[in-house]
């Protein structure tokens, strides 16, 4: 079966392209200190708003910082934060979703009502409100996003568990006297995990967008940190004279988000065992 998946992965063009982009981006982020020609945060007013040159491949912004370097360092913030948010969300939502779904009863009921309440608010609005309370900053941004995201995932996971729980093989395992924890870890988790991973990958793009959006509003990364959303915000006053300032970070967001979305979708096609 694993061989089959591997073959499908290799033959899938979308997956190859998107994963290449992601891989390339990750490399850029990992080796940013070596690949960036300049210090991304070095302010040098004498070089402000320059075009591309051998020293500054994509030119400089209004404070004379190298745009290319800032873009590369921006990958670190965007991808790092997005994966951190996703990881924390999974750590919280998988156990809670499985517990609520498997246990059922009043625990499940209580959980669902909490979900209903929180899901009544648009998630971006909710994270905006949370950051408003907590104060701007990367840590608070991550916290706010996780607090908003986990509900959605826990709810989806609960639904998956509910449908798996009623399956005959769970009953068969119970009949054999398998302890509940073993059933959860060895039967339920492997059955739902591929769907959860696909869902997570499809959402990474969304999270990157949300992080950029919140940073654009000045609620995420604080200056002088490099972040795409913030770069777009910084370049607003120079939009007419130097549109490229806004274009580059925008392109980066576009490419990364598309790559992750395509990757997630292709992954879903490949991992969907039911189709076979």
């Amino acid at each position: 079966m694993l061989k089959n998946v591997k073959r499908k992965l290799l033959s899938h063009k979308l997956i190859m392209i998107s994963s290449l982009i992601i891989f390339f981006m990750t490399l850029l982020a990992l080796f940013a200190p070596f690949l960036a020609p300049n210090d991304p945060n070095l302010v040098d007013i004498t070089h402000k708003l320059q075009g591309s040159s051998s020293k500054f491949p994509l030119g400089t912004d209004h404070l004379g910082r190298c745009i290319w370097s800032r873009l590369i360092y921006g990958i670190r913030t965007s991808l790092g934060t997005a994966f951190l948010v996703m990881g924390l969300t999974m750590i919280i939502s998988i156990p809670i979703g499985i517990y609520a779904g498997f246990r059922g009863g009043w625990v499940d009921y209580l959980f669902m009502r909490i979900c209903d309440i929180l899901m009544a608010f648009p998630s971006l609005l909710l994270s905006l409100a949370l950051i408003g309370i907590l104060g701007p900053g990367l840590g608070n941004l991550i916290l706010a996003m996780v607090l908003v995201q986990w509900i959605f995932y826990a709810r989806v996971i609960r639904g998956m568990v509910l449908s798996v729980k009623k399956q005959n093989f769970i009953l068969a395992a119970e009949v054999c006297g398998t302890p509940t924890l073993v059933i959860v870890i060895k039967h339920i988790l492997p059955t739902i995990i591929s769907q959860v991973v696909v869902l997570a990958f499809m959402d990474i793009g969304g999270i990157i967008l949300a992080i950029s959006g919140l940073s654009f509003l000045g609620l995420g990364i604080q200056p002088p940190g490099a972040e795409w959303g913030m770069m777009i915000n910084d370049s607003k006053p120079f939009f007419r004279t130097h549109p490229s300032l806004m274009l580059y970070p925008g392109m980066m967001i576009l490419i990364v988000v598309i790559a992750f979305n395509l990757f997630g979708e292709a992954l879903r096609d490949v991992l969907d065992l039911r189709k076979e």
Partner: protein
Amino acid sequence: MMGQHSILTVNNLNIVVSTPHGVTQTVNDVSFELEAGKVFGLVGESGSGKTMTCMSLLNLLPDEAKVVEGSIKFRNKDILNCSTEDVRKVRGSEIAMIMQNPMTAFNPVRNIGCHFIETLRTHLHINKHQAREMAMAYLEKMDLPYPENLLKQYPFQLSGGMLQRVMIAITMSLNPSILIADEPTTALDATNQLQILKQLDRLRNEYNTGILLVSHDLGVIAQMADEVAVMYGGYIVEKASVLKLFNRPKHPYTRALLQSRLGLTRRKEKSVKRVSVSHRNLINRETACPFIERCGDADHTCANNRLELKEYEKDHLVRCVKLQ
């Protein structure tokens, strides 16, 4: 009766299920005993309470169902009032169960070896290697070819008959004293049925396991069972040894059931009694006979009498007012 040999005693079991439309009495006053090395057959149509009875033996009733009365004793242990952990230890190792549909009883994302080893290691203190050896030995005993390859295969790569044999191998390996076989052959074709029945027979002879065989296949029951109970509408309507039941059925439902069999030698009979199909009202049932709406012999006495399972002759119990 032979109470001292019985391993499992079910006494006056009553199960109710709450549905959106009301509470149904799914199992009523069911009592039977299971002895080592014997096969107790449970026959009845769909919805007569067979599976509910089986699940209650392992304390695995669905959330909506509840035992309201009665007791289930397994070797002086009260299954219904045990702690969850105690019941779990009994499951598999002492009371095993073969599921109705082998194709769905295995987790599709885990291979056969995983299932086998998991169950073995739940109950026995052995390492993975020993468990693997043991699994291979038992698969071989079930006449399954290439057990080593089989352990690496996924459930969808095997046929229903093979999976059922794997399931029996898993249950056999823990040497349970009771095996509940809930329609073990329903999902299988005739050749596989025969093989499964042979294996069950072997299990009984070699390991002295008591088997509760649930089926609506009368042929299977006739071949395997020592004692048979016929269930209808949650009641045991007739209970007797297999020969008595098949040769001299007393309850009208049993008689209708036996007449409905297709035989190779059956001539075209005009007098085959058809049991009309009507929905029995299981909710808010009064003390009338459950079979009253479909019984050809029913009259006013059937509606008013409290039914009891009475001894018609020695070891032959019938629940019918007419025969008492």
